[in-house]
């Protein structure tokens, strides 16, 4: 029942001739497109150029839309206030020469990174949100600055999220603006143990095919809760502590039944197991779709824990879209909430422009200001013939910035790892909206 074109044979010489002419035609067409690309991405006036990228298609489209809106709005604010100062004292605007769609796919992220590095004048690449993509992107960068034997790319990247632990140390050209999940959950459970002395036992689940959710749940959230005196009532758990990394497999094996996949549609087995354990507190370490699916199933099974704790990535509008009622009461630590004048102003601007500010996109906003700070500290010339030096200077300056202004408070950076230490608050779904219930800074 298969059909394909039947025998076709040309004289070999003729075929070769045709192929040669054909490829000539294709290369001309290709060059034409190439010229078109470079024309689209270069710019005449002197300005500090940056190029952003994120997911603008696919199920994670909201990341890209929000981050782009936040970035462009922040850059507009900076330019309205005069722009940035170059090495020779002139004030120039920051120009976002493009925002590309990387669809949170590794291949596309790498392609866009290489495109930014080799065909544009951007001094920094500002993308993306998905941890897996960052892991791949950072891997093609030069590992250590100045290592001549390493042919990796020499292009600074300032990612707006990519929250999976430990990514920025893959390369010295890689920077992130993410809160430290270990610190956040540690502080959260310390506070919860004081606020809710009646809560003793806990259990929970995660989506195992999503790297960020899985490792944060297993290595960070569960451990932090145990550290602060909560008792894990899932299936038997081996001795934890420093053995956690090697013991991950045992822990995973032990907690098997409370795991699900990020696209799952049936959570009945997992919910029932939790019901049997009857914990006071339940962790739902999962992105909005499967978190909502699981929460809805828990509600159906009449599982009513006293406390619900979620994953940082779910402190967003998507969770409210997916299960406003069932998520009622869930507590999540997050790097953004409109609690300061700065934050409220930014929130108003970004919402007005059609996006949402949450911990992902707020980082994109802050990054624009971080770029300003680094540019001014680096003293770059913003001319296309000094591009490589400008990028190197920018990277060095960014690496030495130890403090910057975040939207909800000052952010410190660790020069060795390229990571940020951001202030955070705890938010909870109250009456269908995210409400800040505690700011640990008092």
């Amino acid at each position: 029942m298969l059909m394909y074109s039947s025998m076709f044979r040309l004289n070999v010489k003729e075929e070769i001739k045709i192929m040669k002419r054909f490829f000539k035609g294709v290369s001309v067409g290709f060059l034409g497109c190439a010229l078109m690309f470079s024309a689209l991405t270069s710019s005449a006036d002197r300005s500090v150029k940056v190029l952003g990228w994120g997911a603008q298609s696919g199920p994670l489209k909201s990341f890209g839309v929000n981050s782009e809106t936040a970035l462009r709005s922040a850059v507009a604010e900076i330019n309205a206030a005069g722009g940035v100062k170059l090495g020779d004292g002139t004030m120039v605007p920051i120009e976002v020469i493009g925002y590309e769609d990387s669809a949170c796919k590794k291949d596309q992220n790498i392609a866009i990174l290489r495109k930014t590095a080799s065909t544009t004048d951007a001094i920094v690449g500002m993308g993306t949100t998905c941890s897996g993509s960052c892991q791949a992107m950072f891997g093609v960068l030069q590992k250590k600055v100045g290592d001549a034997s390493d042919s990796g790319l020499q292009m600074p990247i300032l990612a707006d999220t990519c929250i999976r632990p430990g990514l920025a140390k893959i390369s010295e050209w890689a920077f992130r603006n993410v809160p430290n999940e270990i610190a956040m959950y540690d502080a959260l459970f310390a506070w919860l143990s004081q606020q809710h002395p009646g809560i003793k036992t806990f259990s929970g689940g995660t989506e195992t095919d999503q790297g960020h959710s899985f490792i944060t749940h297993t290595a960070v959230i569960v451990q932090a809760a145990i550290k602060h005196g909560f008792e894990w009532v899932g299936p038997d758990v081996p001795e934890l502590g420093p053995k956690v990394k090697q013991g991950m497999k045992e822990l995973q094996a032990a907690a098997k039944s409370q795991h699900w996949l990020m696209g799952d549609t049936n959570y009945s087995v997992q919910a029932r197991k939790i019901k049997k354990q009857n914990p006071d507190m339940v962790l739902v370490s999962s992105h909005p779709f499967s978190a909502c699916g699981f929460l809805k199933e828990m509600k159906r099974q009449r599982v009513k824990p006293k406390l619900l704790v979620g994953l940082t990535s779910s402190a967003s509008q998507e969770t409210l879209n997916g299960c406003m009622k069932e998520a009622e009461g869930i507590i999540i630590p997050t790097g953004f909430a409109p609690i300061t004048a700065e934050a409220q102003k930014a929130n108003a601007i970004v919402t007005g422009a059609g996006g949402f500010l949450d911990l992902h996109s707020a980082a994109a906003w802050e990054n624009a200001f971080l770029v300003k700070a680094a540019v001014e500290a680096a003293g770059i010339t913003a001319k296309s013939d000094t591009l490589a030096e400008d990028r190197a200077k920018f990277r060095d300056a960014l690496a030495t910035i130890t403090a910057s202004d975040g939207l909800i408070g000052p952010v410190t950076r660790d020069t060795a790892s390229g990571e940020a230490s951001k202030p955070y608050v705890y938010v909870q779904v109250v009456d269908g909206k995210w409400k800040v219930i505690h700011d640990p800074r008092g």
Partner: protein
Amino acid sequence: MEDFWYEFVEVTQTISDGLLFGSTYALIGVGFTLIFGAMGKLNMAYAAAALGGAYAGLAGFVLIKAPLVLVFGISAVAAAVLGYAIYFACFRFIPINNHLAALMASVGGLFFIDEVVVHVTRGSPLTFPSMFGDVFFEIGPYGIRGDLIFVFVIGLISTGILLYILFKTRLGLATRAVAQQDVAARLCGIGVHSTNSVTFAIAGVLGGIAGAMTAAAVGVLSPVMTVPLTIKGIIVAVIGGLGSIPGAIIAGLFVGGFENVFLYFRGIDERDMYVVALLFLFLVFRPNGLFGTAITRD
């Protein structure tokens, strides 16, 4: 002894949950098998059209506060329209014995519908209203979801109606005639294209109901559901026997039940591997599935 009794209850509960949830797989499988039976082609865009219909139903709920029955109705109609559009775009103009091109075109259709949905919703998961969502029967130590029983019943009813149409109406006769031998059917004056497009539309109605049911059963609608549902639907159609509608129903329940049992005993990491292994077993030992072909002659 108490432990054994507890385990027994848990396992049977798991099986029953899985069976009931399997009704959603069954309906999607029926759609795939119907199109395969009628045209000998695989419509990869089927689950996408089904979910597209569900989104349309959700739009009705959100925009005009449609009552649930209407939501399901809108889903069914929208998916039928989408089904017809897929037929027109991906199957109508491609030579009838070129299976590969039609397959690839329907893959294009899958991408297209998914991306339209992403554009409209920004990829965000959306809460879907459920029928009888709060109904939960507690019979002794067992708990049975009312809404899944509803899905099961609707599934049976829709399939019954479908079988009635196929075997007791002229339209069904035409569909089966075209499926068996399209040249002869044409000679008898049956319009092949009009019959096939109606088949796609009917499959679409089923798909829309399946999509809405699945969304109601999970409670959330999201574009991440499309590919897993497509794969499950195809697996169910194959295990049931391509072209056999009762086969797809039974296979759907079977896959749903087994999936849950594997999850209960072996955990999430191995669950899908066992489902896949199950499929392999069928393909090796019973390549015609549970019931072989009911509509077409090979």
